[in-house]
């Protein structure tokens, strides 16, 4: 045997013994457990295991699972070395799964844990982590109901001046005097959008006045369901004012649900119809400035309102009046003076007062090292 061959054999034996020693030192993941993920709809299982020591040489983990009677399959790819949990969201409801956690080293040596006990994903009726949120909602609802009761029993409720809403009558009066139409744009929100719902209730109030003044009210919609709701609301307003004859359904129409096509269409209406007053109320995105600038260029009085904070600057720059965020929600109460809405508005103020107190108290407590408010808030997240 040549010297080179001897050296090669010694080298191979050394490599093998080091590799064996290393793999013998690589401990399998310990305390591996699979549990049904709490507070979900039963579509996931959580797998947990103990963290490996930093010098264990583990470079990652793989999760293997199998349904009884079938082979193992890998899920989730390679997890980083520090992982201790994995949520398997790809399970079939009703099937029991067993899991194995496989530790992988940089040299691609592997060692597997024992199989977990079989576990099924089951859904829960209640998300117990949301209980503080539930109590928060109960308190908030109670504040609103209390104020509603107060308002309906005849107690006068003060509402501070909101300039943008005081201009509504001015805008409608101007359009009537000029014999031109009013354009009401609800933005791109759908019926599940809070700002769109608020905008529709404002439209109801605007429609009451246009019914009185017999001013044409144009409402281009970008959602078929919003279109139907708006038609019904405006029709109700005209009926309430005793002017069903003045209601023209064709003035409330579907344009398109595409963002910039809608903006192009609204711009075209502004240029051709030349409305004297334009309301831009609801949810807006990048099309806000295009519409507001066109409205400005035709000299219409513009009252905008949105809770989209990125679009508010453009409305402030290009419109005569702008309702900022919450002012949009307060508009219906302000315009109608209806005790129901006024009571609700005051109830919301109580809610804000609670938040105000929670922040001030929270800051004082946190600075004193007491953190039960943040702990409570963290539980709700």
């Amino acid at each position, binding site marked *: 045997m040549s010297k080179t061959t001897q050296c090669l054999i010694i080298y191979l034996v050394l490599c093998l013994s080091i590799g064996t020693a290393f793999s013998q030192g690589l401990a399998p993941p310990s305390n591996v457990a699979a549990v049904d993920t709490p507070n979900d709809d039963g579509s996931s299982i959580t797998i947990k295991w103990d963290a490996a020591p930093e010098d264990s040489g583990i470079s990652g983990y793989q999760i293997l699972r199998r349904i009884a009677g079938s082979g193992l399959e890998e899920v989730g790819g390679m997890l980083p070395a520090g992982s201790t949990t994995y949520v398997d969201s790809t399970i079939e409801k009703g099937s029991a799964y067993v899991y194995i956690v496989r530790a992988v080293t940089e040299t691609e040596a592997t060692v597997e844990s024992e199989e977990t006990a079989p576990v099924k994903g089951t859904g829960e009726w209640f998300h117990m982590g949301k209980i503080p949120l539930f109590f928060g909602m109960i308190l908030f609802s109670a504040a609103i109901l209390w104020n509603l009761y107060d308002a309906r029993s005849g107690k006068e409720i003060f509402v501070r001046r909101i300039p943008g809403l005081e201009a509504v009558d001015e805008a409608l009066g101007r359009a009537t005097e000029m014999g031109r139409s009013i354009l009401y744009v609800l933005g791109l929100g759908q019926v599940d959008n809070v700002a769109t719902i608020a905008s529709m209730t404002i439209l109801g109030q605007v429609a009451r006045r246009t019914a009185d003044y017999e001013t044409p009210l144009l409402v281009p919609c970008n959602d078929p369901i919003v279109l139907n*709701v708006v038609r019904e609301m405006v029709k109700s307003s005209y009926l309430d004012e005793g002017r069903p004859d003045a209601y023209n359904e064709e003035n409330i129409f579907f344009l398109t649900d595409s963002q910039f096509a809608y903006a192009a269409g609204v711009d075209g209406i502004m240029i051709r119809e030349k409305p004297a007053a334009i309301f831009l109320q609801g949810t807006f995105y990048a099309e806000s400035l295009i519409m507001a600038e066109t409205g400005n260029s035709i000299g219409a009085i513009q009252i905008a309102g949105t809770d989209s904070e990125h679009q508010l600057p453009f409305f402030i720059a290009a419109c005569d009046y702008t309702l900022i965020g919450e002012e949009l929600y307060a508009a219906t109460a302000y315009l109608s003076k209806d005790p129901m809405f006024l009571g609700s508005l005051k109830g919301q103020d109580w809610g*804000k007062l609670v938040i105000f107190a929670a922040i*001030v108290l929270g800051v004082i407590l*946190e600075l004193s090292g007491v953190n039960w408010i943040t702990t409570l808030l963290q539980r709700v997240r």
Partner: protein
Amino acid sequence: MEVLGIWIAAFLTLCIFSFLYRDNPFYRFAEHLFIGLSVGYSIVVTIHQGFIPLAWEPLSEGVNALQSELTSEGTPETKEALSGLFKIIPIGIGLLFFARLSPRHTWLIRYPIAILIGFTAGAAIPNVLQASIFEQTYGTLTPFAAMHAGSLSTGDIVGAILITIGLICTLVYFFFSVEHQGPVGWLSKVGIAFLMIGFGAAFGNTVMGRVALLIHRVGFLINDWLGSIF
């Protein structure tokens, strides 16, 4: 074919840009084409991504499964497909929107509207409470815990204090049932100042984004369109 596409895109882009001068037939043509195409496209998308997979397929599978069950050829799969029959409830409610077509039955449309608004508002309230109130309050308070632990830099301390003052004052601005006079008036004025500073920053940031979009469009005209000519 690609060159033709570039020419059409360039022509329509210039048609839309012509609005900067005044309303004209070219803009009107592009506007109507854009609206018509987008409506047609959304109808096709709604049919293929909404009506067929969410209504037609589960319902027809449910009807077929019911037939199999009635003829005693049921399997576990057909039992599962039977759940598709429940789709008849939302489909029935949705069909009430068509009541508008009959003046005598138009009142029926109020039912789907009431269900839709009630459901969406109810679903939105907990989310708004969590995302806009609980999360924001938590985010405001967390730096003060770090401040107590001494792990916050001077800049971060100033930032946390400024954010809290801004938040409190802005909150005061949105109190509607209180007269904004005296201390409340002063706090609300500070609040509106914070709002305007925020809006100014957002304005600048968004304008930069819009200029980038304009540059992209002008780049298309110069490079792709004019580049294909010269």
